[in-house]
């Protein structure tokens, strides 16, 4: 059972044949599975654009990570900022599974880290066509099925595991 699923989408861009045709300014979005209104991101362009791919980052870039206190979706009250060590949590997944040997069978993945060699930020490019609404899917089942919760059930700081899990999560996004 999943109890929490929250992650940041940032630096959203539309591409046409690998050329950037649209860049969202101040592009930081906290997607929270328990708040459906966070899952609809509106983009506005004052000229007609044609694109065949959408690009975004899963997480928060390093410059923003060192820039001090921010507001809106980046406010530390959103629960996506580590307090004992500076840095945004790019992706948060919590829940329970009978496979998980931890206390109350709880698993917790707080994935982040902006400094080499543990930079967890992922760039995702998805092919699409020019249209009014692009539906982007995140296949959480695919990700969780690929996990061995008996062995890996807790990541709470920037490290190698956080980077490799972040890569797998980035592969679980697709468009229809």
């Amino acid at each position: 059972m999943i109890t929490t699923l929250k992650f940041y989408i940032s630096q959203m861009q539309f591409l046409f044949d690998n050329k950037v045709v649209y860049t969202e300014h101040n592009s930081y979005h906290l997607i929270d599975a328990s708040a459906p209104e966070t899952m609809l991101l509106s983009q506005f362009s004052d000229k007609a654009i044609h694109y065949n791919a959408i690009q975004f980052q899963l997480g928060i870039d390093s410059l923003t990570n060192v820039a001090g206190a921010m507001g809106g979706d980046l406010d530390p009250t959103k629960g996506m900022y580590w307090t004992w060590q500076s840095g945004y949590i790019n992706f948060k997944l919590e829940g329970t599974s009978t496979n998980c040997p931890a206390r109350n069978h709880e698993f917790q993945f707080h994935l982040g880290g902006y400094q080499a060699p543990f930079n967890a930020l992922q760039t995702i490019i998805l092919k699409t066509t020019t249209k009014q609404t692009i539906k982007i899917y995140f296949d959480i089942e695919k990700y969780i099925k690929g996990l061995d919760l008996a062995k890996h059930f807790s990541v709470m700081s920037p490290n190698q595991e956080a980077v490799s899990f972040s890569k797998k999560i980035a592969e679980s996004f697709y468009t229809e």
Partner: protein
Amino acid sequence: MKKVVLVLFCLIFTAFVANNKLFSVPDNWPQPVYNFSNNPLSENKILLGRMLFYDPILSRNNIISCASCHSPFSAFTHIDHALSHGINDSIGTRNSPALMNLAWQKSFMWDGAINNLDMQALAPITHTAEMGSSINAVVDKLNASAMYHELFFKAFGDSVATGEKTLKAISQFMITLISSNSKYDKVIRKEVAFTEQEASGYKLFQKNCSSCHNEPLFTTTDFANNGLAVDTTLNDIGRMKITLNPNDSLKFKIPTLRNIEYSYPYMHDGRFKRLSEVVNHYTSGITVTPTLAKELQHPIILTASEKVDVVAFLLTLTDQSFVFNPKFQYPKEVFFGKGER
């Protein structure tokens, strides 16, 4: 048309004067690293930050404030406590550092865990052995307080507290804590002269200590292993806890030596109570481990009287005008002038 130009000129002039008054870089100091453009100083924001710094509302049980472990009279640290002392008499794992000249610091905490002054307060607010609260709980309490509605409105033009505004206000107060008026500073400015003993200590200091505790901040703000034997009750690996890099094992933030007379006990675990113990550590107490600072690979040799001279010099870093600056003290006129929260 002429009139418009004149008005504009006046505004720029006022802004310049106001800014100068709130923060100025002492002569011959480097430029600060804090990014003021993200958080422009104002008198009302500094006052809000000062209120928050002294208000135990930041802790879960409304008893512990920032000032509990960072008192002005001890150069904003907690004297007589080797390890920091928090909520419900909890004892932490490190010695609370003295706070001053923070706009020049690249990172915070003994291990550099915090990358920006704005984010520093999150750590003690949350830590179960410090304030045991959360930024969300703090913001909720502030938003329920009529006094803070007014203070936030005056500071930000909006009475609603957020995490961002709360943290930025605390930063503003901390940035104003500049210590640059010790006897040492007055000697550098040629206003007074060292005694013979202090002058001898200064020379010995420059020869033996200043590559890590460099002037004028008396720290490079980097990390170093200064040869302390590991306290096996703590097993603190220092900077390596953050970077996971074995080359950073046992390295800790090089602290400033300014106001060291006030900020005892010394070292990340508060193991030394007296400055003489600190000096003796460097002459005869170094434990050699693979990450030991290169400056300490060869022993520092000082005679008994030279050690006394070094301590005499260190005492010239005491800045009474900093410790007793009325602008840095508990803002009782605001707490008690406003009635109920």
